[in-house]
């Protein structure tokens, strides 16, 4: 197995793990599982089965496929454009100075652009509205942080195992890491 394959496998398993922690209650977890089960190569199937457990894997697969419905984007976009026009015209009618209207629309556009980017970042985010997007981001952020922490500790562990550190440096690092882990997990 090449390095990149290994890396993909590790990353996939890590993502699946944090997704399965949510047990299908959040959009992003379902999206991750749906994406993983959609791939047809052996590696992902094995990982999915082993991480999710065989009977739960099928259950979650079904749930995630159902929820990843792509509704009509064009309809949404046309509605948003209409709303924008309405708001602009309403503001103009109320004798709000044009530069304020323009500034408002600029601010809105900025926010929209960033929302689009965020939707691309959070898995399964393209199908959510703003409110749930922020909630999902919250949840995803927490899980990501946990993931990074644990992976970092494990990387340190493998370094220890491989004998990267010697002597008292090893002890110091181990102490630090162990304390950190114990703090992390209570």
């Amino acid at each position, binding site marked *: *197995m090449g390095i990149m394959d290994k890396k993909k496998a590790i*990353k996939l398993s*890590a993502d699946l793990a944090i997704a*399965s922690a949510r*047990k299908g209650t*959040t959009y992003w977890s379902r999206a991750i599982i749906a994406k993983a089960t959609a791939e047809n190569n052996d590696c992902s199937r*094995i990982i999915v089965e082993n991480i999710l457990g065989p009977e739960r894997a099928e259950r979650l697969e079904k749930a995630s496929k159902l929820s990843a419905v792509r509704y009509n984007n064009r309809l949404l976009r046309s509605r948003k454009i209409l709303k924008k026009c309405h708001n602009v015209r309403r503001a103009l009618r109320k004798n709000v100075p044009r530069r304020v209207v323009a500034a408002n629309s600029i601010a809105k556009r900025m926010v929209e652009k*960033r929302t689009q980017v965020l939707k691309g970042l959070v898995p399964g985010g393209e199908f959510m509205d703003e409110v749930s997007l922020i909630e999902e981001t919250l949840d995803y952020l927490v899980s990501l942080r946990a993931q990074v922490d*644990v992976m970092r500790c494990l990387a340190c562990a493998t370094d220890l195992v491989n004998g990267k550190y010697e002597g008292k440096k090893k002890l110091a690092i181990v102490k630090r890491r162990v304390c950190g882990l114990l703090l*992390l997990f209570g």
Partner: protein
Amino acid sequence: MGMGDKDKFELENKSEDPMNYSPDMSSDWRFGGSNLTNTSVGLISVGNSMSVSKGDLVGSSCSSASMVDSFGPTIWEHPTNSQSLSFCDISVPNNSNTLSTLGMRKGTPASWRSGIDRALDMCWNPQNSMSKRAARFSCFNGGNFNDMVNPFAVPESMGLYSRGAGMMPGAQDILAGNGMKSASGVQSQKNELNAGEALKDASLTVEHGATDGSLLRNERKSESLVKSHDEAKQGVGNGGSGNESDEAEFSGGGQEEPSMLEGPGGAPSTKGLGSKKRKRNGQDTDLDQPKGASQHPGESAKDNTEQKGDQNHSTGTNKATGKHSKQGSQASDQPKEEYIHVRARRGQATNSHSLAERVRREKISERMKFLQDLVPGCSKVTGKAVMLDEIINYVQSLQRQVEFLSMKLATVNPRLDFNIEGLLAKDVNPSVTCWSFIYASIFPDMPMAYPSLHPSQQGLIQAGIPGMGSSSDVLRRTLSSQLTPLTVGFKEPTQLPNVWEDELNNVVQMSYGTSAPPPPNSHDADVSLPAGHMKVEL
């Protein structure tokens, strides 16, 4: 310094092409590596060529470990400096506009702040101290992690995140968050209310700037007028009782407004307008009430369609809304209705569309506040766009860290194979949720370590071990005979449980000089738990 450069690079990237947020891993890491440590060679080699020998990669991973170490604590200290500076520059012309659009649009200028401050400080329970709350929230109930259905449980736990300062960044937060989640699953509504209190506490204590204050006050004021199911979770009781005294103070304090108009650089026109509204608002809440009553039929249809999602979450808390929401609006005595009662403020459109929009906007700003607590360095940032920028940065950086760490783990482990037959072997206990598939590959000399493992040790084991040859066959046999698979209710993000167990046992023995190994059970359970869900298992 190096961090600052890296962030400036990101910033430039963004400013040149604001839509180009795609994480270009190799180039970013190359840049970051050269700035951060003197192991740029190693990093570039990792990034560029995949066919490097093991020795090179191990060397690079050693150096990159130090970089990784420096990530956590420091990465967000520098960005706050550089980014906040640059974003201040960018957003100064927009600052007033965003404020006027977001903050002042709600018709609540910053001058309400002091009035509401006093009222709220009075009305909050002094005996509900932080320690009590923390103790209550940190009780772990073992089997209750299936109850994390309510997505609002997530925001509620945010209130405790701000208290987790001083510990490891992820540690206390996640700890408290877990406690919150488990507790809320058990003690549903009462807990949620207290969590709401905690939230409000935290959000108040966290905010420093005037602009933050203005947004918070907007929220307070809006809570008095917006009766929704969300209120049950946000401690509407406290907010409600506070608002009664609020309104009394307003009419008294109406004369002081000119002296209090010192808010953040909002447009003076909007402030003046807002102050007029405020004065009249204090006296016109009585007028509002009959108007509110007549609005219900009109709003109900619109709100019903808009708030369906909330209803699904909130029907369970209907009764709580009825019980715990005191005072002010007589809409509170209709807890059975499943839509949101919104009262229009004086001087604002009573169109159902705009009301629903206002509710939506307020919800969004609440969530943004929670995110503010989560994302480091965001307490002083205001405005949706800048906050979203910070959030995007943070998520991107976390994802890049995951990629980097997974790459590092991949390089450190020499062999990783997927032997399908091995994994689907008969001795797989279907109830086992296992997650390791490479640990056998790492340690050809593992059989020596195995006798040290308890047969009763609750490990996170790979029931089907990838076949690697003769050594791994031996491993597999010994493993399946010695380790008992157990049902584990949680998953792990990575694949090295055995390594960790062994090494941890040995090393901790070394460092603490005790003959008895530390309880391997707790270690295993602890170590392998990702912080997001904790099931105490011994």
